[in-house]
């Protein structure tokens, strides 16, 4: 006998309750307000091509630290995840610790940008943003917070331009791209990236989205919406959910040449950890990183397995290497209440001690 004991009358009541919640929720959805994202006040201080460098306004009564912090976000998805809403904002948390926060918004590459390479991103865009900030503050170096793929780019940048990076924080950053739990890595091993890029030019955001959602298709494209029905009667939760949905499906296309190199060199050949990576004409050696490093990873990360980030340990020459494990997922590390309480203040504290 199977352990299922659902009486028809109970089932009917449950379905009625579900239907009523759904109908009430639909009314809330009909009245949903336009979604706002990126809530903290900021100003665009530098622009180049589609890139915009933002500087966030300091919080009142919080003295600014001298060394500015540059956030380098991933090329996939949009950086407003770091400032999603008033009570779930990594940026706001950093401002609260006195950081002078800058953030790179990469924009949406189109077909005219398909020739942009990783060299252009790392030794071009990031370097010029760093120069701009250092020049503005009359400082030789700044702090960098690299997030996800942005963390990988930041590692490459720091390995090449170590004198300009005072402290480096990496967050859910893949370093070893061939760990056993890495589903994304397993999938792309037999993909003909040259054929993809030569055919499509840029790689469409929809394709990347499909890949990310395919990591957990039943939860991410099914169960999530059923669970949402329970929250639909709360207008603010509906608004939060819509905001998150907007972010999830707001995936910029990837510049073809960058995608080609990222998949081939990082995912297929794991060159970063093997020390055989070249960006432009420069060899990337993680051993060249000597500044203090804070490496943060999420224990339930389904995109970047913790072990893929932990691989950074002992790969740099930093005498001041710290790890922080967050008990949550790849997204929760920016937006969960626990992250607001534990992760962001920890970054601020770590930086303040060293700046």
């Amino acid at each position, binding site marked *: 006998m199977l352990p299922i004991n659902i009486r*028809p009358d109970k089932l009917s009541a*449950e379905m009625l309750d579900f239907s009523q919640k759904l109908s009430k929720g*639909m009314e809330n959805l009909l009245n949903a307000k336009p979604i706002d994202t990126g809530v903290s006040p900021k100003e665009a201080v530098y622009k180049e091509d589609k890139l915009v460098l933002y500087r966030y306004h300091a919080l009142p009564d919080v003295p600014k630290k001298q060394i500015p912090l540059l956030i380098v976000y991933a090329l996939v998805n949009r950086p407003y995840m770091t400032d999603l809403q008033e009570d779930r904002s990594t940026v706001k948390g950093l401002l609260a610790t006195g950081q002078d926060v800058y953030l790179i918004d990469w924009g949406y590459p189109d077909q005219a940008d*398909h020739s942009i390479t990783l060299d252009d991103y790392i030794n071009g865009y990031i370097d010029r943003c760093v120069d701009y900030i250092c020049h503005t503050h009359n400082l030789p170096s700044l702090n960098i917070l690299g997030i996800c793929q942005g963390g990988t780019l930041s590692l490459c940048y720091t390995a090449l331009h170590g004198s300009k990076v005072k402290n480096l924080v990496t967050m859910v950053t893949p370093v070893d791209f061939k760990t056993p739990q890495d589903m994304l890595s397993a999938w792309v091993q*037999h993909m003909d990236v040259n054929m993809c890029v030569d055919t499509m030019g840029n790689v469409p955001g929809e394709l990347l989205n499909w890949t990310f959602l395919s990591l957990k298709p039943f939860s991410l*494209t099914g169960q999530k919406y059923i669970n949402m029905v329970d929250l639909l009667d709360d207008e603010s939760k509906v608004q939060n959910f819509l905001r998150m949905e*907007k972010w999830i499906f707001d995936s910029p296309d990837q510049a073809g040449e960058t995608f080609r190199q990222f998949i081939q060199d990082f995912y297929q050949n794991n060159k970063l950890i093997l020390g055989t990576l070249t960006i432009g004409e420069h060899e990337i050696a993680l051993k060249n990183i000597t500044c203090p490093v804070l490496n943060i990873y999420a224990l339930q990360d389904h995109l970047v397995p913790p072990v893929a980030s932990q691989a950074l340990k002992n790969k740099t020459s930093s005498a001041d290497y710290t790890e922080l494990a967050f008990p949550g997922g790849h997204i929760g590390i920016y937006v969960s209440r626990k992250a607001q309480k534990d992760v962001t203040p920890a970054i601020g504290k770590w930086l303040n001690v060293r700046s």
Partner: protein
Amino acid sequence: MMDTPFGNTDWMELQRKYWQTWTDMGLKAMNQKNPGTLAWEGALDYWRQALTVNAPDVSKVLMDKLLDQSKLFMRLTDEFFRNANSNSTSGNMEDWLDTVQKTFANPFTGFIANSNEQTEVMRRMLAFWELPFDNWQRIVSSLALVPGDALFNIPHEQVKDKLQQVLSAPGLGYTREEQTQYQDLLRQGLQYQSTLRDYMQFFSSLGIKSAERMRLRLSELSTKGSTIESARELYDLWVSCCEDIYAEQVMTPEYAMLYGRLINSLMAFKHRMTTIVDESLGTLNMPTRAELRTLQDRLQETRRENKALRHDLETLRELVATLNIKHTNIDTDNAATAVISN
């Protein structure tokens, strides 16, 4: 008057009553031994038609997803409890799991959405495992000049041999190169379709494994003395079993190969199509994609060089400015020394 998108509370109230009536019908239907139609599902369809048309853009997509998934949840619930007796629903679960396994064992009678042979029961049951496949089809449609369904519907199995014969025939006459290209395009289309079938076959095998895992999990619960007391608990357990099996299987080398083949075959098809379009544009003396790429590459190279030169120029300017300051300071110092000496 309440501020609704329709400007009329009566209309909303009417909709609510309408929904309630459908809900009541659903309740009645669930107490019948073999309800003829899925009243829940019908109610949702009407609800969708009435509401989503006037919904704000920000909500429209989410409403669609909520209604789709709610429908799926209701379908599954309906299947779980279709033949329930009046006192308990556990007895029919074994039957349900058996049916799932049998259905997945022969996926091409039920798994393919547009198969005429499938029964309604199978279709509803299998809809859940169509999720990954459906997601893929949406992507293909958004990427393709030819919608994904069109690619999928190329007649294959029935006329495979004849088609291969035609495709192997060499091109003749002035247009032989063009003929070869179109033959290759069709060949790539068939290759993609064949891979897509393998992909679906893979998922159907996962359906069987999920049912086995569900049996195991239920048995574990039984051993622990726990019981499932709601449709949602059962649904969550089914999702969890499917997700676990999926996670295990998509990490296998077999799936990695299949995934690569699926992407590569689609890209090969699109690549051939792009080449044909490019050649047509070329004959019309219009710019082709290949030419644009060459221009974009050259432009990017020039921009890269410009930016590097501008950076070097800026560095030199700063250096000159620094040297000038130093020079001025030296002159001033020399002048001061001269004054003191005098």
